[in-house]
């Protein structure tokens, strides 16, 4: 994300906070000066010279101003006080009634504040507990709200669908579509509009250094699908998408504003893209961008005749017709797939189509992970609330004497209850506000660590309902879990005296809460350890190549100047030479289909020494087109035969090598070495039969956790593709300027796209596993900590309550060690029961993690053992301090104090 985007995001965020706070101000202020006050605050926030801690100061100013405005006598009352005497009296009477209610409440409030301020320890623990629970929950709710709940920013969002292809032989895999298929399917009744799209970079030249602009390529207008009108000019049409058709583009509103200065005459002007002038025919409406953040749209110019139904490079985006459902569309697609298979058996046999709602498509696998996280923070909240309840019970016991005195002085049970609830409410509000602050920090952090697989997480803006959620959660937890203690407190006051059977009841209820906390913590801990093992297994995955100090960038040659395959081959040869000459570079290679780059090409193939299978039944494999230095650069071993070499050129014997997965997968067809194959792909040069000359090691290329795919490697000099990921092994990774210069020396109009080191690419692929592991581990850590605090509280309480008994025991000759054992025994029983219940809950719950786990069984006994040990050790530690207190008891003093 660029600095400017972050700033504008912060700006939006602040605006929202300001407007939410102003909504709570008295109406008189809101209506007269509110809007202008908000603007001034924004000015202040935007002023770089306005000092530090601005966000905190902003919150303070908002709070203080609002509070003072509420306390200000109303204008009418003020007017009355200086006007006619009767009016003044009336106003005073009215205010008197209101004031009485207000005064009683204020009195309770003041009292609650005073009484809380006498117990700072209790307040800090209670507020911190609530804040942690609320913070974690609000942060995850922000993510869930943004990703799963909030409607997509399109009016017809619910009707939008994404169309993919499924092959009979791999039903779980969603694949790209061909343009003719998409165009045929756009005629279905249930689909109002359907467009084929692909995303690529356009190289913008003609104004300084070449720049890559992300663009959507379409077979017709996209705005029609989203039921939108262009802001100016027109949308693309099917007529634009002709081979050698007009070079036209539609630009995004943001691009028009930032790059074209919002000029009125932008429509009709031209931009130089990939070295060719393109006419701007339209401007998209403000805020519209699809897919992702493309900035312009252009026709595909697909050669339908030449490539046809076997070219699966596109995705369909469509809109359901009015009154039709996704299920109806899916049924119609099924029928259409059968018809197409009948009409075009060579390309469409075994092919079917799947329509998914746009949101489902965008959210994908992230849904399960996010819901698990939401469940996890829910457990954290329960633990926090249990702690809160436990604290209230303890405090209730301590206050029994005070409450008894109050009852004797005439306070009603209702008033006492109200007092306790007001206290809880205050704690709830403070905990909630702090929790929301914490949530903002956590959300910020989530944005920085979120992997690519979770959509929209880079644009999290906690909104009013998220804050509402946090505050309601905090207040709700505080009030709910205080109401029972409050009631017991108020009813217990009839029984005077400091020590009654009630105390035992308190110990029982606190122990009960503790068992629950321990059980919940253990469940979370098991989940966290399962994800941790998954992540460590993923770190251990053998990639099959050496990723360190390999730099990579993507190069795409434009049609203009590279229409002949020889020129393409020459470009890459010269590029290899220039790059190899850069000081610090050890080896240079290239590949179309680099590990974790996402651009893979599949091909059908067959051995020429076997009868050719029927069309549609041919085996398929990934085809990787390489500059031979690739194998050396990534240190991929040759297992048998030979590797590809620079001498494998166009005009020489066509060759290929395959990986070990290929040998395994097609073992029943015999050993591939020295056999001739025919591939079904065709790039720059016409494809001829190739001899397989070697077998190389497997690499994890498309995912970290999947089995390696069967792959066929062919030399670029015999293929001449215009796209390639160049890989460079170098000493150190700070060579980008030199590499850029080297590319510019070959062709100054070619930009380096998608620069990254292979280490970064692998790290990105590990992102989702790391993300879920880190979050769940964090929440489990919080859970264990909260339980430990709870345990500490309960055991300390027991020690304090039994001081007299312990002192007597000591006095009559018991050893100090006996007392220590006594204390631990008090804590161990609830901990052990909690662990037992927690193990059962974890066994039931860990199955939910399912697809998030890799090479770890949800019922792995070692995981459960580890979780038990961790929790037991932490519990013992939590009991050390009370045990030491008991052991160091001075019997005579303790008895005197009692």
């Amino acid at each position, binding site marked *: 994300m660029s600095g400017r985007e972050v700033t504008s995001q912060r700006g939006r965020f602040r605006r929202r906070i300001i407007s939410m706070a102003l909504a709570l101000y008295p109406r008189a202020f809101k209506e*007269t000066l509110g809007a*202008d*006050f908000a603007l*001034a605050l924004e*000015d202040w926030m935007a*002023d770089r010279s306005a000092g530090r801690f601005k966000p905190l100061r902003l919150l303070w100013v908002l709070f203080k101003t609002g509070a003072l405005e509420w306390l200000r006598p109303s*204008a009418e009352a003020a007017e009355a006080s200086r006007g006619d005497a009767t009016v003044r009296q009336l106003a005073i009477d009215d205010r008197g009634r209101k004031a009485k209610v207000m005064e009683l409440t204020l009195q309770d409030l003041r009292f609650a504040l005073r009484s809380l301020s006498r117990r700072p320890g209790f307040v800090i623990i209670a507020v911190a507990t609530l804040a942690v629970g609320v913070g974690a929950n609000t942060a995850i709710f922000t993510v869930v709200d943004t990703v799963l709940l909030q409607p997509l920013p399109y009016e017809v969002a619910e009707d939008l669908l994404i169309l993919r292809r499924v092959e009979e032989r791999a039903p779980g895999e969603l694949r790209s579509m061909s343009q003719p298929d998409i165009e045929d399917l756009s005629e279905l009744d249930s689909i109002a509009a359907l467009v084929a799209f692909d995303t690529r970079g356009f190289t913008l030249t003609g104004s300084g250094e070449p720049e890559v602009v992300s663009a959507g390529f379409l077979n017709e207008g996209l705005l029609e699908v989203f039921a939108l009108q262009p802001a100016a000019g027109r949308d693309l049409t099917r007529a634009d998408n002709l081979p050698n058709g007009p070079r036209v583009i539609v630009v995004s509103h943001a691009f028009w504003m930032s790059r074209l200065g919002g000029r009125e005459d932008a429509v009709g002007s031209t931009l130089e893209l990939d070295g060719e002038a393109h006419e701007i025919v339209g401007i998209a409406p403000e805020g519209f961008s699809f897919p992702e953040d493309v900035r312009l749209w252009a026709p595909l110019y697909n050669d339908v005749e030449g490539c046809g139904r076997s070219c699966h490079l596109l995705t369909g985006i469509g809109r359901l017709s009015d009154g039709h459902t996704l299920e109806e569309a899916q049924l119609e697609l099924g029928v259409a797939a059968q018809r197409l298979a009948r009409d075009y058996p060579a390309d469409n046999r075994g092919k079917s189509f799947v329509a998914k709602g746009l949101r489902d498509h965008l959210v994908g696998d992230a849904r399960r992970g996010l819901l698990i996280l939401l469940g996890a923070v829910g457990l954290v909240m329960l633990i926090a609330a249990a702690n809160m309840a436990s604290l209230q019970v303890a405090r209730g016991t301590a206050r029994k004497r005070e409450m008894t005195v109050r009852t004797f002085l005439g306070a009603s049970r209702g008033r006492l209850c109200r007092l306790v609830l007001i206290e809880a409410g205050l704690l709830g509000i403070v905990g909630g506000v702090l929790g929301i602050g914490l949530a903002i920090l956590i959300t910020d952090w989530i944005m920085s660590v979120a992997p690519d697989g979770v959509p929209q997480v880079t644009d999290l803006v906690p909104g009013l309902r998220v804050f509402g959620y946090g505050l309601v959660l905090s207040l709700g937890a505080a009030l709910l879990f205080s109401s029972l203690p409050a009631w017991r407190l108020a009813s217990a006051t009839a029984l005077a005296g400091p020590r009654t059977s009630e105390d035992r009841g308190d110990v029982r209820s606190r122990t009960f809460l503790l068992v629950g906390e321990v059980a919940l913590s253990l469940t979370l801990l098991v989940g966290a350890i399962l994800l941790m093992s998954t992540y460590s297994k993923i770190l251990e995955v053998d990639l099959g190549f050496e990723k360190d100090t390999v730099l990579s960038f993507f190069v795409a040659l434009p049609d203009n100047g590279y229409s002949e395959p020889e020129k393409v081959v020459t470009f890459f040869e010269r590029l290899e030479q220039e790059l190899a000459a850069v000081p610090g570079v050890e080896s240079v290679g290239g590949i179309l289909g680099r590990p974790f780059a996402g651009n893979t090409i599949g091909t059908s193939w067959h051995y020429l020494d076997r009868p050719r299978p029927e069309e549609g039944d041919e085996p398929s494999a990934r085809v990787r087109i390489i500059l031979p230095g690739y194998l050396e650069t990534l240190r991929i071993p040759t297992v048998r035969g030979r590797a590809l070499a620079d001498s494998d050129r166009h005009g020489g014997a066509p060759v290929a090598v395959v990986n070990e997965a290929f040998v395994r997968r097609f073992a029943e067809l015999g050993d591939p070495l020295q056999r001739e194959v025919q591939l079904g792909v065709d790039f720059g040069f016409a494809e001829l039969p190739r001899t397989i000359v070697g077998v190389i090691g497997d690499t994890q290329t498309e995912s970290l956790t999947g089995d390696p795919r069967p792959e066929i490697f062919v030399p670029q000099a015999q293929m001449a593709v215009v796209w390639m990921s160049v890989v460079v092994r170098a000493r150190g990774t700070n060579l980008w300027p030199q590499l850029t210069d080297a590319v510019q020396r070959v062709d100054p109009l070619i930009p380096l796209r998608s620069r990254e080191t292979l280490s970064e690419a692998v790290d990105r692929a590990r992102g989702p596993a790391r993300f879920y592991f880190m979050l769940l581990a964090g929440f489990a850590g919080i859970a264990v900590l909260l339980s430990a605090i709870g345990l500490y509280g309960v055991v300390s309480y027991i020690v304090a309550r039994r001081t007299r008994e312990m002192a007597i025991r000591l006095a009559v000759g018991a050893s100090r060690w006996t007392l220590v054992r006594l204390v631990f025994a008090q804590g161990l029983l609830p901990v052990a029961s909690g662990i037992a219940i927690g193990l059962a809950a974890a066994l039931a719950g860990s199955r939910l993690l399912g697809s998030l786990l890799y090479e770890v069984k949800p019922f792995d006994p070692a995981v459960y053992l580890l979780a038990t040990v961790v929790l037991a050790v932490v519990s013992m530690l939590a009991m050390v301090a009370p045990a030491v207190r008991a052991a160091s008891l001075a019997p005579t003093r303790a008895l005197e104090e009692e």
Partner: protein
Amino acid sequence: MSPRDRRQPLSPNDFHVLLVLAEQSLYGYALLKAIQEESDGLVSPDLGALYRGLARLSSDGLVTESAPPDDADLSPGRPRRYYAITEEGRSLLAAEVERLGRALDLARIRLAPGETK
């Protein structure tokens, strides 16, 4: 009781608001910056205090909303509201300055070196 009687002596905030507006009308944040500048940073209300002050001053008829001056920097975004001093505000400011002047004279006399009473 006229506003003047109730308002005098003016609080430092109100005084500086009127003092700045006596020269030119300004929008909220610019007003704050001008007050800080003219008081050498000694008077530096937060925006909340400034706006609560503005609310009081305008309900007393000392300050009013005005059209942006011709040379205002109309930067993009939502239009800011400009504040101007009223005639009543101006005369109150003058009265306050007079009061302060008298107090200042008195202070000078009493604090002059070598003179005691």
